[in-house]
């Protein structure tokens, strides 16, 4: 190669640098010539172990640092000088993106923990790249949206009384396999329980896996089983293990993060999970193992909820949900994980509350299900979600029983709504609640409602009913909601005119970008010049997922799950699915941050974001998310060409 042009002579980048960038996210997205262009501007520096690169709130960040070799720790220092470790970064990771993008000083302290070589990309080049290349933009926007939230809470952290420990990081980063402490121990299913107890005592463990005669893992026996099913029940020490074991054993892949293990345990109401790798059980983890890592955690709140013996005891607990959520957000949890956690906590509060209420009132005359609608039905609650609920109970031919049920559920519905309100869940302004007799009906009546909405020639009614189509079972007998869902799916196969009504209405809503790609904001009233992120940004995606799911017989109600199910069944492309999910999560995240800020300031949370307060980059992020809505609209249009 002989290049006579002086400029290019002096700007050849060694292949190693190019090769490195080519396998480094997100630079691997760039084409060759852009990459060469970037590589030309790179500066290489070496930082011996123990070099402090960034000082929180002091260092002006001039470069994006990409780690070629070595490692760094990232930590926070509070006013008292206490250090909280936030993260480790290794090869291929970078630091400095957020301060550059936000134009602020370093938000954290960074120090090398090994001899470290870095590629330094000058601030200007990096910003140009972020602004000119949409894939890079998206990448940094996404990770930015997570980090942004943490930064938004820096203020808050200073005033935060909750001590922050290194352990809190583990929930999202530690793999289940990292906390398995030992190989599993087994016992034959026909062995006496006393032998099981002796082995557990000898080994200092709290559970044994039970093997059947053919060597399969048949179940698990824990010390609680021995306590409740043998000692307390006065059964013989020679009872075979088989009689008291829990079966089957719940498993979790060893690559799952502890957060998922926690969710599984909470959902199944169990304390032990078998850790599995390639179909083989590698060990057992307990809720305690995770709690030890986690310190003060959602699990504690969960336990407090389950332990309540009085309904009034639940009132203050639900107020703690935002606190738990704040911790999650600070730890960088994704919006979808946060809503899942809120949903599970709220579900448990509901479960406990209604159980205690039934204890108080006596058993219901007929089996029933407490239905959750709207965002609760979709498992997409944020803070202080309005109540949207209803009761469906079993049909009966006995008029006496029916009257009794009517009376019982009237009182039950009314009390439950009052208690929920005391717990901090505001009443539904549209009165879609179990206290409203219209939404407290036997199964046949509910079936009739849905038939009417599906067959309805009246578009308005269909629209009012959309949130009903997102129902799910909340408490009680789950067979009726299942039957209802099946019924709707069968009927939708024949009758799709109602979907056309829905689609037509959704398409009437304009995407919140004007022709000039500026934001459309509220023109009048209290929220003048503000953007309603829920109705303008999130609802279109929710609606799209709902219509396509109803059209294609998908039972899911959660928007992200619906989109994934649609992609799995080939109704939308995988690319559209992930783009729409990204847009959805991004906006959810912004909404979370906005609402948390309001809660902190003692303001009732709302959905109105002031575009004037957004950085250029955040605006860009939102615009990209809105561009997805245009695509979704185009798909609806081609699907319902009559519009």
């Amino acid at each position: 190669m002989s290049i006579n042009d002086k400029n290019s002579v002096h700007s050849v980048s060694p292949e190693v640098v190019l090769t490195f960038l080519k396998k480094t996210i997100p630079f691997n997205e760039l084409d060759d010539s852009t990459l060469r262009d970037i590589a030309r501007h790179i500066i290489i520096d070496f930082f011996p172990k123990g070099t402090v690169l960034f000082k929180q709130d002091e260092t002006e960040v001039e470069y994006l640092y990409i780690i070629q070799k070595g490692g760094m720790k990232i930590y926070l220092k509070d006013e008292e000088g206490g250090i909280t470790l936030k993260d480790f970064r290794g090869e291929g990771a970078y630091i400095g993106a957020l301060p550059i993008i936000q134009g602020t000083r370093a938000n954290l302290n960074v120090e090398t923990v090994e001899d470290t070589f870095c590629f330094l990309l000058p601030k200007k080049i990096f910003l140009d790249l972020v602004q000119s290349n949409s894939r890079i933009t998206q990448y940094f926007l996404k990770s930015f949206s997570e980090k942004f939230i943490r930064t938004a809470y820096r203020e808050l952290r200073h005033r935060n009384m909750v001590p922050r420990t290194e352990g809190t990081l583990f929930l999202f980063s530690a793999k289940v396999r990292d906390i398995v402490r030992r190989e599993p121990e087994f016992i034959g299913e026909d062995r006496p329980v006393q032998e099981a107890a002796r082995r557990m005592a000898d080994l200092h463990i709290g559970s044994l896996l039970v093997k059947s005669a053919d060597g399969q893992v048949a179940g698990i026996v824990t010390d609680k089983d021995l306590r409740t099913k043998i000692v307390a029940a006065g059964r013989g020490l020679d009872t075979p293990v088989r009689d008291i074991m829990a079966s089957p054993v719940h498993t979790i892949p060893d690559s799952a993060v502890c957060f998922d293990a926690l969710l599984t345990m909470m959902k199944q109401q169990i304390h032990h999970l078998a850790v599995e790798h390639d179909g083989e059980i590698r060990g057992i983890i307990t809720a305690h193992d995770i709690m030890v890592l986690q310190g003060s955690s959602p699990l504690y709140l969960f336990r407090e909820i389950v332990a309540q013996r009085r309904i009034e005891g639940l009132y203050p607990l639900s107020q703690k949900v935002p606190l738990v959520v704040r911790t999650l957000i600070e730890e960088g949890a994704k919006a979808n994980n946060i809503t899942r956690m809120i949903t599970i906590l709220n579900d448990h509060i509901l479960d406990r509350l209604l159980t205690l209420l039934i204890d108080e009132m006596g058993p219901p005359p007929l089996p029933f299900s407490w239905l959750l609608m709207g965002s609760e039905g979709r498992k997409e609650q944020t803070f202080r979600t309005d109540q949207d609920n209803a009761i469906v109970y079993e049909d009966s031919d006995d008029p006496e029983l029916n009257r009794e049920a009517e009376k019982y559920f009237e009182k039950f519905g009314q009390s439950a709504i009052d208690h929920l309100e005391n717990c901090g869940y505001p009443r539904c302004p549209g009165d879609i609640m179990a206290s409203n007799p219209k939404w407290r009906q036997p199964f046949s009546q509910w079936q009739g409602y849905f038939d009417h909405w599906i067959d309805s020639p009246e578009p308005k009614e269909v629209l009012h009913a959309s949130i009903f189509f997102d129902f799910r079972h909340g408490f009680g007998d789950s067979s009726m909601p299942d039957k209802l869902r099946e019924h709707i799916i069968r009927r939708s196969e024949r009758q799709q005119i109602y979907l056309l009504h829905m689609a037509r209405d959704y398409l009437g809503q304009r995407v919140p970008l004007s022709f000039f790609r500026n934001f459309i904001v509220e023109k009048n009233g209290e929220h003048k010049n503000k953007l309603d992120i829920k109705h303008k940004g999130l609802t279109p995606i929710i609606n799209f997922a709902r219509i396509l799911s109803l059209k294609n017989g998908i039972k899911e109600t959660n928007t992200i799950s619906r989109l994934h199910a649609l992609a799995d069944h080939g109704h939308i492309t995988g690319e559209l699915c992930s783009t729409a999910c990204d847009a959805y999560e991004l906006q959810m995240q912004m909404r979370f941050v906005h609402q948390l800020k309001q809660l902190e300031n003692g303001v009732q949370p709302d959905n109105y974001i002031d575009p004037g307060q957004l950085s250029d980059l955040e605006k860009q992020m939102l615009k990209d998310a809105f561009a997805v809505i245009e695509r979704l609209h185009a798909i609806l249009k081609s699907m319902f060409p009559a519009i």
Partner: protein
Amino acid sequence: MKVFRELWGSLFRKPHPAILRNREIFQDFDQSLPLSHYDFVVFDTELTGLNKRKDEIVSIGAVRIRNLHIELSSSFYELIRPVTLESTDSTLIHRITPDQLRNARPPEEVLPDFIDFCGNALLVGHFVGIDMTFLNRTCKKTLGGHILNPSVDTMRLARGYIEGRGVYSYGHTDQSISYRLEDLSSRFDLPRFKPHNALEDAMQTAYLFLFFLKKLKKGGIKTLKQLYQAGRIWRLM
């Protein structure tokens, strides 16, 4: 006759402007400034062989260190057309074919560019003596003069660093330590480059140099003079 004309030319010809500029720069060179004030050009040459009398330079790769970090925007790589174009044993090592060399510019065109590229920088190389010998021999022959940039040998730095850490007795060189660029790079666990390409080798050397600079700086060596006095590692040409 040809030999005579060359000799005559080299003795009495006015040196190339690049050589003159170089002389001016280094007329009074200040060694007392902090290390960060100096530019370093880390370079490597590929040769047709190691015979100082008849072998020639076929490529130069170089990268600049400024403010104590490597600037990729300021790197240099070019092939040089030797007088003898036949392949030699070295062709197998550096893998530059005679065909590629035939299309390259001759040293009298490439070297002035390189000298200007170096400017007032100190030259850094691994076993830099060999590269400097070939470089200055070629300069003398084709441009009518030497270049005066002081040079730094990373091999000597490595020896100073390893011995200075007290593992080995002062002045005694442990024969079991290999001071080859590749071996030192793996000893200090540096990122690795493809060997036997002048630019990649220059990069590898630059990494090694940066490593020593920063490690020694932590040890209190802040100025060029201190570094010069501290080690038996400097060699001013």
